[in-house]
């Protein structure tokens, strides 16, 4: 195909991706090093309402001549980044700390390093879910492949359910199962295990991880199952003739054939792990487990600070790059070979 045709065919998609992915990404970088805030004046006002009058000394934004609040926009460099990593500037550390008058600031408080907490949970999530997703997906694919043809349809459909369900709905259903008097919590209580799932860090994080395994295993399953349909039959027959057992066939013929798919599923899953959002939002509202996606969302919509949110976004991208670059390198080399 000539370059001209190529460009013609790919023009729409390139246009879309540039306008809605590349450009916003560049804007995010720009936003993350700026900050805008109104200018406030100290005022004392007389307020009256349903509960009677009161006097209030408060701050109010200054208005310009057209009646719009004055905005101070300036370049703040890396200060938002520092904020997220917990390297607070000297100004923020001079609060009149309790019982530490005169003593230097104690740099405690791990929850000030919000981004690192979010990133470390995301990495924990990846490490905890990926092996299980691969394992369950593979086991399920092998099992269903071994079934009678007629029975497969039902089992495939039912197994795909967690993957197609809306993540918000899935997370809510898990919450209703594990809440204080939910089904699973009660069943466990009958068995003597009393855990308040949403009440402490380890169980809340475990729930998010369980959710991840529950939701992604079907994807691994369906990819591996499709792969099993294309295992080279002649190699298998040759192995049978050579007297190989089921396990040996699995290990020496089937698994190597599926190896590229394992990499594929892992790659997609790791990318999606950085998008974990709904379980964190629904299960604990960010209390014990936070994810990088939730952090950006929270800062943008709750704190209403798009500049700070952009800094969180850029940090997220850095976090992704660290993990993904080695994996991408491998894919690059493979594709280079193919192309």
């Amino acid at each position, binding site marked *: *195909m000539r*370059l001209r*045709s190529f460009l013609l*065919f790919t023009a*729409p*998609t*390139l246009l*879309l*991706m540039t306008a*809605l*992915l590349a*450009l*916003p*990404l560049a*804007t995010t970088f720009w936003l993350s090093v700026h900050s805008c805030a109104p200018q406030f004046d100290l005022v004392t006002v007389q307020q009256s309402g349903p509960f009677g009058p009161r006097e209030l000394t408060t701050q109010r934004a200054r208005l310009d001549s057209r009646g719009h609040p004055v905005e101070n926009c300036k370049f703040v460099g890396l200060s938002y980044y520092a904020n997220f990593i917990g390297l607070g500037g000297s100004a923020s550390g001079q609060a009149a700390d309790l019982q530490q008058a005169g003593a230097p600031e104690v740099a405690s408080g791990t929850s000030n390093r919000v981004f690192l907490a979010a990133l470390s949970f995301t990495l924990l999530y990846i490490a905890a879910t990926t092996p299980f997703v691969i394992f369950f997906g593979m086991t*399920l694919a092998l099992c269903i492949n*071994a*079934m009678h043809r007629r029975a497969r349809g039902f*089992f495939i*459909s*039912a*197994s*795909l*359910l*967690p993957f197609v*369900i*809306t993540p*918000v*709905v*899935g997370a*809510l*259903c898990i919450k*209703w199962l594990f809440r*204080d*008097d939910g*089904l699973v919590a*009660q069943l466990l209580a009958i068995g003597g295990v009393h855990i308040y799932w949403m009440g402490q860090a380890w169980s809340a994080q475990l729930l998010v991880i369980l959710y991840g395994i*529950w939701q992604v295993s079907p994807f691994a399953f*369906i990819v591996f199952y*499709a*792969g099993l*349909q*294309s295992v080279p039959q002649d190699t298998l027959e040759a192995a049978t003739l050579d007297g190989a057992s*089921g396990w040996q066939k699995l290990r020496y013929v089937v698994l190597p054939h599926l190896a590229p798919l394992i990499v594929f599923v892992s790659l997609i899953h790791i990318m999606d792990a*950085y998008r974990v959002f*709904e379980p964190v939002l*629904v299960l604990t509202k960010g209390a014990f487990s936070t994810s990088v*996606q939730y952090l*950006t*969302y929270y800062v*943008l919509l709750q704190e209403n600070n*798009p*500049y700070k*949110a952009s800094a969180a*976004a*850029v940090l*997220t*991208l850095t976090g992704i790059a660290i993990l993904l670059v080695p994996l991408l390198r491998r894919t690059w080399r493979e*594709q280079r070979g193919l*192309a």
Partner: protein
Amino acid sequence: MKPLGSGRFAALTLYAGTGLWVLLACLPILWALVISLRHYVDAFASPLRWFAPLTLDNYRGLWVEREFYVNFLNSVIVTAGAVSVSLSVGCLAGYAFSRYRGNAGFWLLIVALVFRAIPHSTLLPSFFLIFDTLGIRNSMFTLILVLVAINQPFTIWMLRSFFMNIPNDLDDAALVDGCSRIQAFRKVIIPVMWPGILTTGLFSFLLAYNDFLLSSALTNVEMMTMPVAIGNSINAESERLLMQGVAGAVSISLPLLLLIAFFQRQLVAGLTQGAVKG
């Protein structure tokens, strides 16, 4: 592949084990179904109530009072729009990537893969800024295009590997016969592409239908899709709205169940043919 081991016992463990997995996989939504048919006092009872009177109040309240059918229509529009645009644009691009041998194609693919890794919320702050400036923020059209763009990397990768499995001879023959590239594409390739299009379309469908983050950030109440409406109901301070949210959670899943029941065979066929080779 022959079943591992033989005999009744092995078969029994196979089916029972897989059946258990299936039960665990479906348990959350089944439980949601059970409590959606109860009043709040029984659905969230403490301790758990195993049996309780059933009611359709929640569904009635959701679909009639809260006008959930409007949200349903919105979801249909957004999803249909996103899937159709995504497939059209993606097919053209996937075909081009599969037939072009130059370096530019390769580099663009890697860039697309990098884009696939971007979480949605990373783009939100700039979306807010850009869309507000252009005045197009609360628009279904904008949402559809954003969903399409987000899914493009995955779509073109999948479609490209499908196209790579269609031998070059097919369109070479058409070109020799005097067709232009576009004509070759339409007449020769498209008819063979259905499994690939269906599979890719399914993934696009899931992305658009199930999206919560972008849909809630970029739309107005008239345009709320179903996931957003459900999230809204759950967060409200009223247990009636909460129960309607539960009913909504079950309602939104029904089309998905039908979808996988009908198309699971095509999905496997499509994946077998295409993506698993790439």
